[in-house]
């Protein structure tokens, strides 16, 4: 049997058409509108003392539409990069505790009605 060893990096581009933007384009647009809203601007100032920057959502919407329309690799990369930095922003802290690998064992245990402890 002949086996072709294929480098995944070579064929990755072939499957791009099955991938989609991380969010729907409507999501990007609604996030943009929400970001620009008066109430969000107020809450942002109340929380951070600064004004929110919303342009990135608009750019992402543009790239999303471009991706859907023409599968442009530029648009894809730009969108992926933008979302990548959003994820990184959310991870930018040193956790105080150790994460569990499994949920606590007594979460589902029934309550003991009679006090025997």
């Amino acid at each position: 049997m002949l086996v072709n060893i294929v480098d995944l990096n070579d064929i990755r581009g072939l499957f791009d058409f099955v991938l989609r933007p991380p969010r729907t384009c409507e999501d990007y647009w609604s996030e943009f509108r929400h970001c620009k809203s008066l109430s969000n601007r107020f809450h942002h100032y109340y929380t951070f003392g600064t004004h929110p920057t919303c342009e990135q959502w608009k750019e992402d919407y543009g790239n999303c539409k471009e991706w859907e329309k023409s599968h442009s690799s530029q648009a894809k990369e730009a969108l992926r990069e933008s979302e990548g930095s959003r994820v990184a922003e959310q991870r930018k802290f040193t956790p105080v505790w150790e994460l569990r690998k499994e949920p606590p064992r007594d979460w589902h245990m029934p309550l003991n009605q009679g006090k025997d402890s």
Partner: protein
Amino acid sequence: MDQSKQQEDDYGYNLFPERNAPKYKKDSIGATLFTFNHKCQVMLHLALETSPYAKLLLGAMKNSGCQVFKDRHFSCEDCDGAVSGGFDATSSQIVLCQNNIHQQAHMNRVVTHELIHAFDHCRAHVDWFNNFKHLACSEIRAANLSGDCSFSNELSRFNFGLKQHHQECVRGRALRSILAVRKVSREEAEKVVDEVFVSCFNDHAPFERIPHSKKDAKFANRHYESRDRYYANL
């Protein structure tokens, strides 16, 4: 909660006297007529069904292996003082103070606040009883993400502040919560809150943002529900 093990610190259990000895047997006539138990149950049900904050937390907990069942993981009880609720890690239960919660909006907030504690308990090794940093961290997160410190809530407490006031409020409420359940000095509590503040204020799981309003929470929910698509396409 073994009586013989009670040392100087009773870990705040004194605020929840019904944990050990309920005054009226559950579902008895006494419980129905003389307490706010029924009202609490109704408001709890509404909160779990309609609050986008609660729905996201319930979904996140289910995904972490800690599915929440209303009858098992929530308990409406009479409490002491002005406390609104608590999370009992020993029995994995959220306690709601039926005598102190009288409005739906308040119930929604308390449920969200306590679910955040439960979520932390579920996804991390939180040492509630011995590690002050862990306790402080969860309190900071709960005050930050539950809407406790919204502008309108602060206004109703006559705390007037605008620029960055949210953070001041989070600090203050985390401090208050720690002092209510542990026998420590204010200075010690402040020190611990300062130590972990930056890290815990920036931990927005599972919302991935600070939900300032119901709309924020709805957007966060929407993002959470499509996270499979999101991470597959990054």
